[in-house]
């Protein structure tokens, strides 16, 4: 796979009366042709700025941006425009044309691309049907709900079958079912048409469902980049770990823990699930061998990139020695676990 987007040492600073803000800080990033790259990070980490640099809505303070074979940062505006026509963008704030109807908004990029009337109408109708807004075709944006606006933005960005799609919180205003539909569509256009997608999100379901790789931003920098499974299963920096933890809910929160404690007098141990055939069976066997009664009280197993991931909190009941023996056996088998004490997660 070749890189479709290549950022080299890209920095973007904003000068404000209260000092300089470094929104993106010396970022190197390749987005491979055909992949779906998820970008996560705290609010204000620089995610939106990063994608705006990709389609040259912002000029970097330093560094170069390549899209395909074009160095965007060196191209004259006219040539940049040609590149942008190949890039769809979904805006965090929607940025719909208030003077155009829903259909008019979606038709606009098609007009730019010179698509003729009959085909345009057809495509607009198909897209609106997909995002469930066919009956709002002649409404104006100020007559739409938040999620409806966002869906118009999605349809508009997809209208011209772009080579690259930049989606800035594309599903943040959508209910789970609509989100699932949109994600399925993104996955489909990615698979079937080979569209490369950069998707900013804070909804981990989005990452889990469609992303191939994930980049974690913190304070303008990309602090972690790798396959979704790798980053989620073995976060390498505390920031990432904290971020991932809030998502997977794999360890009980302090409040949950204190309630579990109250209800379950036995020892509480959270075991990290490995993508390994017969994993929970193995656990059951280990506990049975050591005559320890076990009971799952919290946690879950889910899928990430077609592999299992998760953690289960067991209540282990039995003589202290037996439990310790069982835990020692787990360690011996290379199984990761953590004993839950109330203070632990405080």
């Amino acid at each position, binding site marked *: 796979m070749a890189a479709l987007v290549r950022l080299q040492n890209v920095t973007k600073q904003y000068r404000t009366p209260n000092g300089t803000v470094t929104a993106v800080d010396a970022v190197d990033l390749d987005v491979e042709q055909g992949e779906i790259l998820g970008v996560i990070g705290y609010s204000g980490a620089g995610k939106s700025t990063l994608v705006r640099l990709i*389609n040259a*809505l912002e000029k970097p303070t330093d560094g170069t941006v390549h899209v395909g074979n074009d160095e965007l940062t060196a191209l004259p505006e*006219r040539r940049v*425009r*040609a*590149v*942008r*026509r*190949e*890039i769809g*963008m979904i*805006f965090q*704030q929607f*940025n*719909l*044309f*208030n*003077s*155009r109807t829903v259909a008019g908004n979606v038709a*606009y*990029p098609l*007009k*730019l691309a010179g698509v003729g009337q009959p085909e345009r109408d057809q495509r607009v109708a198909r897209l609106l049907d997909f995002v469930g807004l066919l009956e709002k075709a002649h409404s*104006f944006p*100020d007559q739409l709900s938040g999620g409806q606006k966002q869906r118009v933005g999605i349809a508009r960005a997809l209208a011209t079958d772009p080579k690259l799609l930049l989606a800035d919180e594309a599903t943040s205003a959508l209910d789970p079912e609509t989100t699932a539909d949109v994600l399925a569509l993104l996955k489909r256009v990615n698979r079937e048409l080979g569209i490369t997608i950069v998707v900013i999100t804070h909804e981990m379901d989005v990452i889990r469902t469609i992303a191939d790789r994930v980049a974690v931003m913190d304070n303008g920098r990309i602090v972690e980049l790798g396959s979704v499974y790798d980053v989620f299963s073995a976060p390498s920096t505390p920031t990432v770990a904290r971020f991932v933890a809030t998502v997977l809910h794999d360890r009980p929160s302090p409040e949950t823990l204190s309630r579990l404690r109250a209800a379950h007098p036995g020892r509480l141990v959270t075991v990290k699930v490995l993508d390994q055939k017969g994993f929970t069976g193995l656990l059951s066997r280990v506990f049975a061998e050591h005559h320890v009664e076990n009971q799952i009280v919290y946690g879950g197993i889910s899928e990430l990139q077609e592999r299992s991931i998760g953690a289960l909190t067991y209540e282990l009941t039995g003589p202290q020695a037996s439990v310790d023996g069982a835990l020692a056996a787990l360690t011996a088998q290379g199984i990761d676990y953590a004993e839950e004490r109330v203070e632990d997660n405080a």
Partner: protein
Amino acid sequence: MNEFISDLPTFYQSIWQTLVIVFVSLIFSGVLGLLIGIVLYGTRPGNLIENRVAYAITNVVVNIVRPVPFIIFVSAIVPLTIRVMGTFIGVRGAVFAISLGAAFAVARIVEQNLVGVDPGVIEAARAMGAGPMRIIFTVLIPEGLGPLILGYTFVFVGLVDMSAQAGAIGGGGLGNFALTYGVQRYNYPAIYITVAVIIVLVQLGQFFGNYLSRKAMRH
């Protein structure tokens, strides 16, 4: 009143002249002013076709014409008026001078109204690869249309006032009629009737402008 009756043909002619002056100048100054206004807006620092030099020059030029007394402006452009219109007097001459003069006012109105358009939508159009001209005509103007129409209505009313000045070069019009046949002769009925016609004309225009702008903004 009898005096006014004898002036009736002139009165009707004045109505006609006002209509011609106002509408023809509205069209010419509207188009020309729109273009200049777009240059003013577009070349502003930070905007679509940012160009400090062009901005500074346009800014200065636009302000040169407006404050200059009409008669001086008319005299200054006599050669141009004669070349373009064949004469510098009468309705033809007046339309030219007024159009040119008003264009610069229109430009400011246009600039003002475009400045208020949400930068987000311009960005969206840029992201789609639209060029500056395209953005101006298919995004900026439609998005700013409501206030823009009110701006043009403002200009329309201003043109009715300006049309009175056409009298100085034989252009006539209602305002001039009110002055010549009314004020100078202390003919109050003539003043009242003429002013009433002017006001009705203006109200109709404003009413229409308000209607259009409400339609454009849908509330």
